[in-house]
């Protein structure tokens, strides 16, 4: 058993209004960042799980996302590759 950290990106589904992102684009432009074209804002989670392998860790976090972490009506999610995590640290 290793401790794996699985990073999860959750983003609003395409076509879903993202008022936060729109507000941030406006703010960035006001701040002089003229080259900004779009911003979408979602959530970033790191999930630490005990698993036998990186594949197993991915699989379980995938299930967590489907079941709980993402709202399929308005969000998509993607997992990054698990990283082995030293124990006893968060």
């Amino acid at each position: 058993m290793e401790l794996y950290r699985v990073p999860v990106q959750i983003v609003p589904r395409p076509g879903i209004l993202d008022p936060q992102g729109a507000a941030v684009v406006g703010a960035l432009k006001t701040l002089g960042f003229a080259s900004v074209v779009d911003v979408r804002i979602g959530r970033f989670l790191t999930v630490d799980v005990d698993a036998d392998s990186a594949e197993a860790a991915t699989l379980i976090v995938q299930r967590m996302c489907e079941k709980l972490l993402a709202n399929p009506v308005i969000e998509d999610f993607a997992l990054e590759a698990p990283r082995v995590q030293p124990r006893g640290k968060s």
Partner: protein
Amino acid sequence: MKFGIVTFPGSNGDYDAYHAAAEALGEEAVYLWHKDHDLKDSDVVILPGGFSYGDYLRAGAIARFSPIMTEVVAHAKRGAPILAICNGFQVACEAGLLPGALMRNISRRFISRVVTVRVENATSMFTHEYFAAQVLRLPIAHGDGRYIADPDVIASLEDDGRVAFRYSAPDGSIGDAYNVNGSVNSIAGILNESGNVLGLMPHPERAVDPLLGVPDGLGLFHSLLAGVAA
């Protein structure tokens, strides 16, 4: 005394602050538009409650870059009073007028109710009309009110008497059960180093009219008035 109340897009406590100053106190009050660079000769600037920029990204994060904030910061530098309420407190922290940050309530829910807070510093320009350890009844209405800061910042706030208010029991005792949003050391309001910027989550401006409940917020405004008269 002239109160200048900043209206950011999404502010909604500006109206309450205005009426507290103009009606309950009978003082002059003006709205200050976020896009302007003009404090209109206000003596006291109020950063009001509400949801500036929808609280999108982080509460207060976008508002701090409004043009008016340049003048507000300069006002603070001059030692003039700034009263930062609720969302205004969040803006003031983001702008560096006050240390620390306000995070999601520990209950993770918005909380709207009357709380009791204890006056911790009864000598500041905002609070000298209260007596030390006086317990006030004030409304709160926020989702992001959990005050946090680095331990050394907290230590200096405590050591310098810059904690202005703490959430407390009605009898003034302090404890987790009364720490409504989980703030470090039950902190409800703090002062900056020179004592001319007050940030607090409770709404004194909503507690100035006996028709609506105990008018415990009046003392804060009277302190400001008395300070100038003195």
